[in-house]
């Protein structure tokens, strides 16, 4: 009798666990990843002739909260039509009662893999702003992500920035399913997502989420996570619990972000939600003001700083006017000789 290798046994076990999707429509090809809520598979859509990703909930729980969460995630995604959010193509229920949904298969890198290739403030901000714009869109639609972290941001092969994993997202005004203490969002291998009502990821979740107060976490909690994400993009470290200038240490970096940008990060990471930007839209607006060389809400500048910023913004214009005046002065001077 031939003995199967451990690898072959593990592969067979995986294949056996593959979901039985409608065979006339989908052919499951490989496992892409497994998390606390469910697994994601690459499948072939026979009808449309393309590869898709299928997320299937883990084995049904007695309370049915896993299915409820996955249903909610698919509905949240379907509601959020945005270039920064993976579109949902289809959803349904397997014969064993598990919920699944079909989405675009994203090829690319996670933010964690992509960030080392970003050098300097401008490329970091360019990627970050696109992720923040997506979150701002969700906030405008009344949805809070609640688990923003590097592994949930994906860079597509054409440079698109996608915000993934809306499994613990909350629709404002409605109690999210399974919010009662449970382990539905239980630890995902490798990403440290906390379980139960303490939803989020240490180092990226807002203080109110850390305290296990996930039900009251609003858009400002995502603003905190975005600030932590920006901090991580600059330093490679999760945000420290105290967000003062010295603890953050951004000014000491070789490619230190400017004082105004550091103030934006600090405002995002404020302990109290009231001291942060109210939502990601306000953060995006302040970043746009920053890039345009305008005063930002996060930083009260001194008259000297203001003058420096204005000179910096209009440098070429001022140089042209100075060149004109210099020319005129030279002509006047030569006339007097």
């Amino acid at each position, binding site marked *: 009798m031939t003995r199967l290798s451990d690898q072959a046994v593990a592969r067979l076990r995986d294949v056996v666990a593959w979901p039985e999707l409608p065979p006339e429509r989908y052919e499951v090809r490989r496992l892409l990843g497994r998390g606390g809520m469910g697994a994601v598979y690459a499948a072939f859509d026979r009808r449309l002739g393309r590869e898709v990703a299928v997320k299937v909930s883990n084995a049904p729980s007695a309370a049915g909260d896993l299915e409820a969460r996955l249903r909610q995630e698919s509905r949240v995604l379907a509601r959020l039509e945005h270039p920064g959010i993976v579109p949902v193509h289809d959803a349904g229920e397997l014969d064993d009662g598990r919920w699944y949904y079909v989405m675009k298969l994203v090829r690319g890198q996670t933010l964690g893999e992509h960030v080392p290739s970003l050098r300097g403030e401008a490329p970091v901000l360019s990627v970050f702003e696109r992720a923040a714009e997506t979150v701002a869109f969700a906030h405008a639609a009344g949805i809070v992500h609640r688990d923003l972290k590097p592994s949930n941001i994906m860079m597509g092969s054409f440079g698109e920035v996608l915000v993934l994993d809306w499994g613990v997202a909350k629709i404002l005004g409605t109690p999210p399913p399974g919010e009662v203490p449970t382990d539905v969002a239980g630890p995902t291998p490798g990403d440290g997502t906390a379980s139960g009502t303490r939803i989020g990821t240490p180092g990226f979740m807002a203080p109110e989420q850390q305290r296990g107060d996930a039900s009251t976490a609003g858009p400002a909690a995502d603003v905190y996570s975005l600030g932590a994400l920006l901090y991580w993009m600059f330093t490679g470290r999760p945000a420290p619990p105290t967000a003062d200038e010295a603890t953050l240490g951004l000014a000491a970096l070789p490619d230190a972000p400017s004082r105004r940008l550091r103030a934006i990060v600090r405002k995002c990471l404020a302990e109290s939600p009231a001291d942060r930007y109210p939502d990601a839209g306000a953060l995006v607006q302040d970043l746009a003001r920053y890039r345009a060389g305008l005063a930002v809400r996060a930083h009260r500048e001194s008259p000297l700083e203001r003058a420096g910023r204005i000179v910096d913004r209009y440098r070429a*214009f001022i140089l*042209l*006017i100075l*060149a*004109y005046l210099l020319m*005129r002065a030279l*002509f*006047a001077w030569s*006339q007097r000789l």
Partner: protein
Amino acid sequence: MNKPVLGLLLGAVLGAFDGLTALISAPETAPQIMGIVIGSTAKGLVVGAIVGWYASRVRSLGKGLLVGLIVAAFFAFLIALAPNPDGSHYWVEIMVPGSIVGLIVGYATQKFGRVRSPVQG
């Protein structure tokens, strides 16, 4: 303010200022200063209108600067063509600052001012 209007305004203001500077760079022109200022303002208006119109159609700082320079230099050349009573010409005195004014208008109209949004039918 849209780009053609910005070009017009900036061209007129800088043109008038450029004309007035003749009092310092060529004091002997004082008796004709009104004519110089009017002519220089008119030149600034025309240059500003052309450069502003161009900026509302083409978004390129390099091209905007080049168009500003060429258009302003051309009109300054036309003005410098008029000889002085002694038959000499103020080629450099008129053309160099005039061209810089064109660069300023070209830069400003590319960087600032609104582009009129297309009307939807």
